[in-house]
């Protein structure tokens, strides 16, 4: 069912060096439409570095990033966004003093054809554009179940809703690939399960490829079709969740002595 077709996001041997430190070495990834891939690893393993290299925050020191077959190395983030890669941030980065609606409307701006002049003259093109943007923003707020918060300032939303607003904003850029940096951080177990259900729905509805960083092993192993495990910047395992879970290298790097028992997540299950 999933993983069909050409990869929408491809990384080949992506390496990030900061001075003498190799934060990420030889990172390979091929993400196909409809896939949900988990990226896990202990703290400081290079997960967010990988995200930043893929989305243009950093230009990779070596290797190649391709989005829908197009080379994307060294492009600025807004260009990579235009190619179809959207992301969220580990520490929520909303436009705090703007309303939820405006947050999503800004993400709809990228495809806008109208310029300053039409805004000043209030041309019909400008009106049509503003209407299109408003409808689109409302639609994505509805998808992430945030319509009731439309006119509230982003900073006044509860934490979980801020996380959802960030996803709504990322979706509004019209991506083929969605990169979620710890979308469930700070949520309780039942919120996490609900969020992952929502993410799956979104993926199926917009046929997205999703790359998700997550700390909660049970959660990520439960929902991902494939999992990549990073440790010290190196990919130490890659495969189906049940294989990765049994991989001795993963158990050693991530779980320590291997005595920890992993169970699949249950809906509304208690904290592990």
């Amino acid at each position, binding site marked *: 069912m999933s993983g069909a077709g050409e990869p929408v996001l491809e990384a080949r041997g992506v390496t990030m060096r900061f001075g003498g430190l190799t934060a990420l070495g030889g990172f390979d990834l091929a993400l196909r439409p409809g896939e949900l891939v988990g990226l896990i690893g202990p703290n400081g393993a290079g997960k967010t570095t990988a995200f930043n290299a893929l989305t243009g925050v950093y230009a990779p020191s070596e290797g190649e990033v391709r989005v829908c077959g197009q080379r994307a190395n060294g492009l600025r983030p807004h260009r990579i966004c235009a190619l179809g890669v959207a992301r969220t941030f580990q520490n929520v980065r909303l436009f705090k003093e703007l309303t939820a609606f405006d947050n999503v409307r*800004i993400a709809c701006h*990228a495809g806008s054809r109208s310029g300053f002049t039409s*805004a000043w003259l*209030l041309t019909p093109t400008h009106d049509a554009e503003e209407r299109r943007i408003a409808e689109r923003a409302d639609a994505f707020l509805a998808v992430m179940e945030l319509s009731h918060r439309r006119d509230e300032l982003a900073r006044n939303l509860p934490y979980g809703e801020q996380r959802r607003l960030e996803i709504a904003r990322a979706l509004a850029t019209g991506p083929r690939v969605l990169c979620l940096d710890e979308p469930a951080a700070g949520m309780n177990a039942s919120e996490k399960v609900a969020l992952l259900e929502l993410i799956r729905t979104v993926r199926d509805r917009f046929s997205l490829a999703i790359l998700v960083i997550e700390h909660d092993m049970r959660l990520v192993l439960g929902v991902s079709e494939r999992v990549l495990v990073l440790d010290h910047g190196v990919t130490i395992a890659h495969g189906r969740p049940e294989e990765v879970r049994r991989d001795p290298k993963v158990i050693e790097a991530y779980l320590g002595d291997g005595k920890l028992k992993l169970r699949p997540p249950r809906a509304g299950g208690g904290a592990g």
Partner: protein
Amino acid sequence: MGRARLVLRSVAPFLLSLPVLWLLQRASPPDVSIVLVSIAVNVILAVSLNVVNGFTGQFSIGHAAFMAVGAYTAALLTTGLADVQLLGLGEGASDGVIFLLALVAGMASASLAGLAVGIPSLRLRGDYLAIVTLGFGEIIRVVIENTRALGQATGISGLPAHTNVIWAGMGVVATVVMARRLLLSTQGRALLAIREDEVAAEAMGVDTVGWKVRAFVISAAFAGLAGALLVHKIQLVTPRMFTFVKSMEVVVMVVLGGMGSITGSIVAATVLTVALEWLRGLDQYRMVIFSMLLIVLMLTRPTGIFGTREIWEAVPRWLRRRGGAA
């Protein structure tokens, strides 16, 4: 029919304000007229600086330099063409057209200066813009003081007195319309996104460098307009009018009114201009008074008098509340 309505909507603010300005012009004696023009000039300066400092969240402190570029360009044109009468136009109409051309030229040259300053300094994040604009302000002044064609330190005198309340008022309307329509459009929201979080804005597809430069260029153009209007009222342009003190005056207006509030900039510019006119004898203490005002404001109301609120948002809300209570 539909087309005419659209054109009407886009120029409505100008048409509506024209009769008001005409009456004001008729009713005000020369000493009032000069105060009205200086209020208008400061409103244009404050609102245009707000586009960079308030909407986009960058910090420019060289607005007077762009004012100087616009003022000198327009002054050279109007003095150079003083004896020219355009074919087929009466004397008044010909002067009006030449002045309009001079204003447009002033805006164009100021925006080119804005482009030259903005492109290198806005690629960087942080305080670089403040440093570069500060330096640019001094450079422009020193260059003028040493250029014979620009009259060096004595400047250019005997400019035609083209600016009146109508011209200055139209300048204000143009500036406010520009800022307001910008703020309510997707382009303006891109600027607000840069102010809120540059990294996130970039990740959401906003070309942050491009939009910062555009905002800066627009802001510079309107500073040029303000300069051109001012010097054709007082009929004199000298480099001493465009010092760092003038730039800071505009920054204070924006900060006092509230960064990001057009209403705030208009109110603060008006109040400060009148206050300065009133305290003319205390001229040398101006900076002391400004500093104290800023300190008091920072202590009592750090977001400025209006924060980011606007009068056109507050009035409907107030009416709704009243309606709800009744």
